[in-house]
């Protein structure tokens, strides 16, 4: 039955096939999953460089003590906008872009289930970010209350305040629509024989991520709408003077925020679970345990939120509960790391760029995991909370974690998308420069936090100078190294060497059964059982 629906969609699309859209219409009216995926990825790349530029301005001001470049309020705008752009503009659209490209190919479908919705969910984003970025030019400047938007501080915002909230509503709508599309595609468009437990782990990780998104984006929308009515319509949800509760915002925000951080990392687990088996030439170890581990992490993400706010003054029982649930996350995460290690064990390992990024993920994400366990220990968290130790922790899981997985995923599938092999030596340069500089950038921030440097400050006491300088040098090095990435992709498209279906010797999955580049409508006829068996990932 699932396929009958897919066939219907296919007929509809086949009608367009003879005149594949060209020019601007191909992109503005796009309904093809690959075109939309490409637009998502280009958009994410653009936002990555804008957000990265802001980060480099932050590191510029923090290079030495004293204020050399920016007013403190503008500095606060830089940290706030850096976070909003990187989370909602770079990472989330990058995941949706990869989902668009890969999921239909990996489940044996011709396209995403809801192509016009797909177009809409992408085209919301440029408007959302035009709105958000334009706040730099309005009276009062860009939002400066942190990406966490805690009231009452957030309520002091100027003209940027309603614009930021409206931009967040748009991003949320885009994410929810994109997630619905992913869920409907995975549940209805799989080729006959592609049972759920035969799906590649990237598809599994996205299925679970999509449910998380649908569950929590409306919660964020609710929280920011309450901020809006507090500011403009006289409500006092978060104002103590009117009987409201500023801490309630933090509870609602982090009920969204914790699943959100897993939304940023779960698809990374999926990609790493594709790359490591390919370059170990061995199926993933413990496939089902991997699926259950992702599902467990997703479930736990709903009951750990208050570990972001241990210093607000919670009852002892609450602190103990959130400490214990947070520590539990280490168990499924440990299972994943052990399974990746066991996949390497007795493999036949080679070190192409995607594998290098996946291995760096394995090491450096684990370091972020260790500092995460430390942060779960409430008494110790009273010391770590709101210091650079936290900044180091979440950047370790987000940069050499999520961002490396995205880069690894692009390096893994770029030959499939373009039909050409890129310059792998350049990719290795990109890897080594990124990996060295990312550690120079973030490792000293552990020291700064433990020594007592608070986060979100534009200037600092002079004893913090040395490690801040090191961190800034790492930041400039990391930022500049990323310029290799678009250059490598451009060079691949222009001058890459043509490649066959299976770009990597050990690659398994339905996408590698298609030609490179794949046809406009990926699987016009569903893959046969023989093809499915040949493509089996485990």
């Amino acid at each position: 039955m699932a396929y009958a629906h897919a066939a219907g969609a296919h007929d509809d699309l086949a009608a367009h096939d003879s005149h594949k859209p060209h020019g601007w219409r191909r992109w503005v009216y796009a309904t093809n999953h690959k075109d939309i995926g490409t637009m998502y990825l280009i958009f994410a790349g653009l936002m990555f460089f804008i957000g990265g530029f802001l980060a480099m301005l932050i590191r510029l001001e923090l290079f030495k003590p004293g204020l050399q470049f920016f007013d403190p309020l503008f500095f606060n705008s830089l940290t706030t906008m850096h976070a909003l752009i990187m989370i909602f503009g770079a990472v989330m659209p990058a995941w949706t872009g990869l989902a668009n490209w890969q999921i239909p190919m990996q489940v044996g479908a011709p396209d995403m289930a809801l192509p016009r919705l797909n177009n809409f969910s992408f085209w919301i984003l440029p408007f959302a970010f035009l709105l958000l970025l334009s706040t730099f030019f309005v009276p009062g400047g860009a939002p400066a209350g942190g990406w966490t938007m805690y009231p009452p501080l957030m309520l002091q915002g100027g003209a940027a305040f309603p614009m930021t909230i409206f931009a967040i509503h748009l991003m949320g709508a885009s994410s929810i629509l994109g997630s619905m599309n992913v869920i409907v595609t995975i549940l209805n468009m799989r080729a006959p024989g592609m049972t759920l437990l035969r799906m590649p782990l990237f598809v599994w990780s996205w299925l679970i991520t999509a449910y998380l998104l649908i569950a929590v984006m409306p919660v964020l929308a609710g929280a920011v709408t309450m901020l809006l009515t507090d500011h403009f319509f006289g409500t006092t949800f978060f104002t103590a003077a009117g009987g409201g509760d500023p801490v309630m915002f933090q509870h609602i925000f982090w009920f969204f925020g914790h699943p959100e951080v897993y939304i940023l990392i779960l698809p990374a687990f999926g990609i790493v679970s594709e790359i490591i088996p390919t370059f170990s030439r061995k199926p993933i170890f413990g496939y089902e345990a991997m699926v259950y581990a992702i599902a467990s992490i997703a479930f736990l993400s709903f009951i750990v939120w208050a570990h972001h706010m241990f210093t607000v003054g919670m009852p002892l029982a609450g602190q103990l509960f959130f400490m214990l649930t947070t520590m539990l996350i280490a168990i499924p995460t440990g299972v994943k790391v052990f399974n990746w290690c066991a996949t390497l064990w007795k493999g036949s390992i080679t070190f192409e760029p995607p594998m290098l990024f996946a291995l760096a993920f394995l090491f450096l994400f684990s370091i972020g995991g260790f500092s995460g366990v430390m942060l779960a220990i409430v008494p110790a968290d009273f010391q770590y909370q709101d210091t650079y130790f936290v900044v180091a922790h979440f950047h370790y899981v987000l940069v050499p974690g999520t961002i490396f997985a995205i880069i690894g995923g692009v390096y893994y599938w770029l030959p499939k998308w373009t039909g050409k092999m890129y310059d792998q030596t350049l990719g290795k340069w990109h890897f080594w420069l990124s990996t060295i500089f990312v550690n120079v950038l973030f490792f000293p921030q552990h020291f700064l936090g433990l020594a007592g440097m608070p986060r979100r400050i534009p200037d600092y006491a002079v004893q913090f100078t040395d490690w801040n300088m090191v961190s800034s040098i790492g930041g400039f090095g990391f930022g500049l190294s990323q310029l290799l990435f678009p250059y490598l992709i451009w060079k691949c498209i222009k001058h890459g060497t043509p490649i066959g279906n299976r770009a990597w010797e050990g690659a398994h999955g339905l996408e590698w059964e298609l030609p490179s580049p794949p046809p406009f409508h990926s699987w016009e006829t569903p893959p046969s059982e023989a093809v499915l068996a040949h493509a089996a990932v485990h």
Partner: protein
Amino acid sequence: MMIRYANSKLAAAAAALLPLAAPVRADDGWGLLNMTPGVTDISRKIYDLHMEVFWICVGIAVVVFGWMIWSLIAFRKSKGAVADTTLVHNTRVEIIWTALPVFILIAMAVPAARTLVAIEDTRNTELTIKVTGFQWGWNYDYLDDGVNFFSRLDRASDAARQLLSGIDPTTVPNYLLSVDHPLIVPAGVKVRLLITGADVIHSWWIPAFGLKKDAIPGFINELWFRVDPDKTGIYRGQCVELCGRDHGFMPIVVDVRSKADFSAWLKTTAAQQKQAAASAPAATPATG
């Protein structure tokens, strides 16, 4: 405790190796690498907990990273490694590596819970001070003694921290960490702070005391500390919750004095403030 003993030995070994790299001081620049044990019983408990969890993580890292690195060296295709494609599942080891972390986590959670219970024991405090964070400074109100004053960034730091001030921060003593009127407390006494915010959320933290607590408008949070009797001196910290433009410029300084010195100061200050209030022109009734 066994673990703590091992900790101190390992920590001593690590500390012994550090000076080989460069002449460093633990309280400055390159030497600022770790949390300090602090000057209260709670801060030392937290430090021990931090080091215990840290060394457990290091232990796990050695095993897991060792396993990864071994695999990456031993199973290289370039050295002729052939993949064992049948190795995809092993129920026994999967159960072990799911269950083993549970025990490690319990080993961390028990001392953590014990310390937390000690932290939350706010009974038998001897001195209560109300702390109000505002944009951008602190107000300290000695509730039982009629002493009340504001505490802001000192003038030397404030001049140097202006954009392009031309003043080198290294020439300013305790740049950004000194105030005009520090909080003065007695050593060896359990001091209770009642913390709140006047406008937005702030957070009060002295790293050497081990605890931080948010200052939230409409809420009164409790935090207590008892500085060791022999640890009189100046302790410095900062606001640690983003509170607007000058969040980075509202330091917290605590001057811990002996009980006798503190009592003398409190008496004099209370008398001064009483006199000042009496000689001031009749104030209009406060509206706030």
